[in-house]
């Protein structure tokens, strides 16, 4: 559906190289830290920037030379970029008017979207009278209104607080599924990427590091950096692995690899983190810091000594 | 430290005690730098000049501030405004000892409150290149013909002093009714009206890229063209049209303003202005003739003509009718009314 073919984007001191494809109806997350070039990838796809080399394909068509308005993609900006001089409904209708839809059809489509987003009460308001979550929904409705083939979202939830984010994340997933739209979004938050997307592509310093289904990427991170970036806490250097009696390295201990209770490894529970339903415990074993998470009932008390086993089936070797 | 103060304090005092004389002039006033410096050196009086705009504006500013005069001396009242100045009673009488040296025909104020300093003539200049092989207009009747009217640029008498002088020349020569008919003909012929001398001369005159080879200016202008060509011209590129009555005499006066606190210094200034060195400095600075009989003229003034038969009107007549003439002129030239209409409305 959307493909970056050997795309290169250059800035002074930075270069993005990307060769990637998104299938029809798929939701892809471009995951990476800030400055990794993931936003540029999105802007190039939308036509807001021109690649220095390579081509962009949309539905099999080479659109590299087309300006943004002729690509038919939807774009949700990080700061939403709502038109401050237009009301909510006028913002949503903007793209439909540009495409020359009939009045009645515009009214229908706008009404439908506002209803789905729960924005009916705000139809006549100007953007600066809305809350952050409402603005985000207007931006989404506006981008979706012309029924784009591809929806591009630049950190769509980045500017919102945690609780709102969780709610909107589910909402966004529902909307993306409901509209059956091909979607690519950019985020630096792995939870967001995992929850929303069917496929995650991890970008670092302008290079695609790894891609795949969220579960696959999480369980088989390609290298140490990716493992850490995805939230793995037990990433062991070869000498640490050797100290624990493991072979090879670097190694990642996936969740569930540590079994407190019995075993050869002596450890001490150094720090206790209470999360509510679960607790996290930092353990010290043979000079290596290890992290365990689980229900409070199973957790070792703070300062207690304990014995550990490591499940070899939950250990994966990664590239340094 | 204290010693230094003891030296400085009297110094500061003596500086602030130096008498300052304030002179209100029109913006065309000019004298050489060293001439002014010599006055300040000789008398110990510091001169401060204030420019009040054109001759009319300057006088009006003096009249407006009658109660609390903005200056001690006013220079630049001309004979078209003399009566207004005298009627306003803003001047003090001063019979300068220099009076014996002045040409008596310019002593237009018998009360000796306004003393003549210089004089000149407003007349029509023509572009010699343009009129090479073509006949010049020889009379008011000629000028009123469309073929000449469309060659002429004049100044609006309501806003310009040469413009007013030229209007007065037509009144003096053609009479109360005749002048309006003349202006009606000029209007129909396409005369160009500029707001002031600079616009008429530098924007409309053919010598500076305009389309009018005839322009109302001064009879000294041809001489100034030679002087300011820096050697390029040995003969003036322009000439004056001087049929009897075609020029108008302008005399400029100096006067001591009523209420001055520097009467003695003001007298010294007036005496100095009428002294030989200053009178001889005047021509090349202001392009007018000095009123002093024994003042020598610069060489280039041989190209400046003094008409034998300038138009004449007494200051009283001018004072009484000036506003009416201007508004009648405007009615005909600006608002396009007919001369008959304006004349019949007088009664």
């Amino acid at each position, binding site marked *: 559906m959307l493909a970056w073919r050997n795309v290169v984007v250059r800035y002074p001191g930075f270069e993005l190289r990307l060769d990637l494809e998104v299938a029809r109806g798929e939701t892809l997350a471009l995951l990476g830290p800030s400055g990794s070039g993931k936003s540029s990838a999105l802007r190039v796809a939308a036509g807001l920037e021109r690649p220095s080399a390579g081509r962009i394909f949309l539905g099999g068509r080479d659109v590299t030379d087309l300006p943004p308005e002729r690509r038919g993609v939807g774009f949700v900006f990080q700061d939403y970029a*709502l038109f401050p001089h237009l009301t909510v409904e006028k913002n949503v209708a903007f793209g439909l008017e540009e495409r020359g839809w009939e009045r009645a059809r515009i009214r229908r489509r706008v009404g439908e979207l506002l209803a789905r987003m729960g924005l009916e009460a705000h139809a006549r308001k100007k953007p600066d009278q809305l809350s952050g979550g409402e603005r985000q929904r207007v931006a989404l409705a506006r981008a979706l209104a*012309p029924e784009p083939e591809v929806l591009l979202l630049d950190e769509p939830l980045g500017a919102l607080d945690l609780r709102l984010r969780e709610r909107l994340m589910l909402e966004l997933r529902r909307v993306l599924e409901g509209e059956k739209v091909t979607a690519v979004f950019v985020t630096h938050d792995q939870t967001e990427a995992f929850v929303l997307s069917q496929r995650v592509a991890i970008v670092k310093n302008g290079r695609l590091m790894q891609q795949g289904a969220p579960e696959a990427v999480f369980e088989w991170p390609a290298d140490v950096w990716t493992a850490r970036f995805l939230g793995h806490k037990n990433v062991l250097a070869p000498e640490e692995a050797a100290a624990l009696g493991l072979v090879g390295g670097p190694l990642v201990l996936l969740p569930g690899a540590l079994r407190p209770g019995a075993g050869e490894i002596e450890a001490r529970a150094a720090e206790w983190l209470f999360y509510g339903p679960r607790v996290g415990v930092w353990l010290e074993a043979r000079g290596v810091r290890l992290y365990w998470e689980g229900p409070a009932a199973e957790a070792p008390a703070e300062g207690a000594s304990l014995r550990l086993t490591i499940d070899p089936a939950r250990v994966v070797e990664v590239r340094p | 430290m204290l010693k230094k103060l003891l030296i400085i304090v009297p110094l500061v005092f003596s500086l602030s005690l130096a008498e300052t004389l304030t002179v209100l002039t029109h913006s065309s006033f000019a004298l050489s730098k060293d001439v002014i410096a010599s006055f300040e050196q000789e008398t110990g009086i510091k001169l401060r000049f204030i420019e009040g705009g054109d001759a009319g504006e300057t006088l009006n500013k003096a009249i407006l501030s009658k109660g609390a005069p903005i200056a001690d001396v006013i220079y630049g009242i001309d004979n078209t405004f003399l009566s207004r100045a005298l009627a306003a009673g803003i001047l003090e009488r001063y019979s300068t000892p220099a009076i014996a040296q002045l040409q008596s025909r310019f002593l237009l104020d018998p009360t000796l409150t306004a003393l003549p300093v210089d004089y000149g003539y407003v007349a029509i200049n023509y572009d010699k290149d343009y009129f090479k092989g073509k006949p010049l207009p020889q009379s008011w009747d000629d000028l009123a013909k469309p073929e000449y009217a469309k060659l002429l640029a004049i100044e609006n008498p309501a806003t310009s002093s040469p413009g007013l002088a030229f209007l007065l020349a037509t009144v003096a020569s053609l009479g109360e009714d005749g002048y309006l008919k003349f202006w009606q003909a000029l209007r129909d012929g396409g005369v160009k009206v500029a707001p002031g001398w600079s616009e008429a001369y530098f924007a409309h005159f053919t010598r500076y890229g305009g389309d009018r080879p005839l322009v109302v200016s001064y009879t000294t202008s041809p001489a100034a063209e030679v002087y300011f060509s820096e050697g390029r011209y040995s003969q003036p590129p322009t000439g004056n049209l001087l049929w009897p009555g075609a020029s108008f005499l302008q005399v400029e006066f100096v006067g001591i303003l009523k209420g001055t606190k520097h009467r003695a210094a003001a007298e010294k200034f007036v005496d100095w202005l009428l002294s030989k060195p200053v009178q001889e400095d005047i021509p090349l600075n202001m392009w007018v003739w000095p009123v002093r009989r024994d003042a020598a003229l610069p060489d280039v003034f041989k190209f400046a003509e003094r008409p034998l038969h300038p138009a004449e009107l007494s200051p009283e007549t001018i004072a009484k009718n000036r506003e009416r003439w201007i508004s009648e002129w405007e009615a005909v030239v600006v608002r396009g009314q007919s001369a008959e209409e304006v004349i019949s409305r007088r009664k």
Partner: protein
Amino acid sequence: MRPSRPATLLVLAFLAVALFWPLGLVIGRGVEYGLSAVLADSYLRGRLGWSLAFGAGSSLLVVFFAVPLVYLLRYRFPGRDALVALSMVPFVLPTLVVATGLLAWAGPRGLLGLDLSETPWILFWGSLLYNLGMTLRLVLGVLGGSGRLVEAARTLGAGSWRSFWRVELPLAAGALAAGAGLTFVYSFSSFGLPLILGGPRYATLEVEIYRALLQRLAFGEAAALILVQTAVLALVSLGYLYAQRRLAVRTAAAAPPPRLGGARGWVAFALVAGFFALLYAPLWTLVLRSFWGPEGFSLAGWAALARPQASYFAPSAAQAIYNTLRFTLLALLVAAPLGFAYAYGVWKGARTLDLLGFLPLLVSPVSLAVGYLLAYPGLRASLVLLVMAYALIAYPLFARTVLAAMRRLPPGLAEAARTLGAGPARVLWRVELPLLRPALGAAAALAAAVTIGEFGATLVLARPEWATLTVAIYERLGKPGIVNYQEAMALAVVLGLLAGGVFWGLGRGGEVG
């Protein structure tokens, strides 16, 4: 005490001294004449009608040309900044010089070959030439922050022109209205240009005020005319303020305009430069004239610039430049704090102050000049009065530029600083001022321009030793002779370069809003 209170008092005190009292004296002298007498006079009614037509026509024309130019100038392309700076130069040139240029271009023997003199068209050309640059700056300043919105419009299917039409133009409507409003104010009350270019037929009300006051001392008629003129201008300003409030939208902080690369950048340059070359042709003819004597190429005018001062009343070029810069600096020293206080007061909530800031633009300079004479004879031709007059004219423009930038500041910043323990003064010093710095530069440039252009100078009795570049130009044009003429043209070029340089240098940091 609210932070706006001292600012309000300062501005009010200044206005009382510099405006209300002197003007009140003039009007007070002539109230008995009555408005009815003016409105009954068909000639004066005609003047009013023409003044209105000239003001309205000029506004429309400026908007008509500003829109396509803004379309191009909102991009960055080679030479763009220089072109924008250039467009402000005419704003500061003396009327006589611009009029001479216009006549040399579109006069009877002009280079254009089409005689527009004594037609309204040459007047409208002059008005466009004077006011277009100012309007461009106002609008471009607002558009600085709309880049993301344009991108949004583009992804929604709007092409470059459509997104300009539907997003940027509505965003800039307030600034465009401001430009049109100021153009109306300047044209409606203009003095020299109609008089010189149109012949006496196209005299404006201000010309009649000048004649009534300074030529005939007719206070009654003048007072009535002043009231009529001020009433019209006040109405326009109220409309302008209303439009500002209705049309103003908050955009993001100014961002650099998007770059137009390669060939398209050069096409944009060619289009704007080509239009400017035509519009400003009267000024190029002046440059040519400074090099051309009656017998062809000549450097006499430029050589004359190096001449030392001969007459006490004919300032040398060096002295004139020095005076121009000195007074500009002095005026800025007064106008900048005053303008800042005014902008700060309005920003922090002193609404009444908003209209007060316009007053200096509404008052006829001629009547104010007479007012000063009546009110402060003791100050006569003093530097205090001169700087006050300069500041009176310069501070509203300074203030409006800064105010626009203030209104774009995120409101949370001041609050954040307050919670960190900074009082209002410290917030101003440590947070707001640093953020406003680019706007302050642009504001200073505009204020400096009106000072260099000497709108204020006519208010005060002049002193020969104060002669600025403008005065020097008039002095040269007051005497016959080719050298005087060429030197005047050379001085006009110097003045234009000086003003353009100030704009380029000071105004670079930010756009006017």
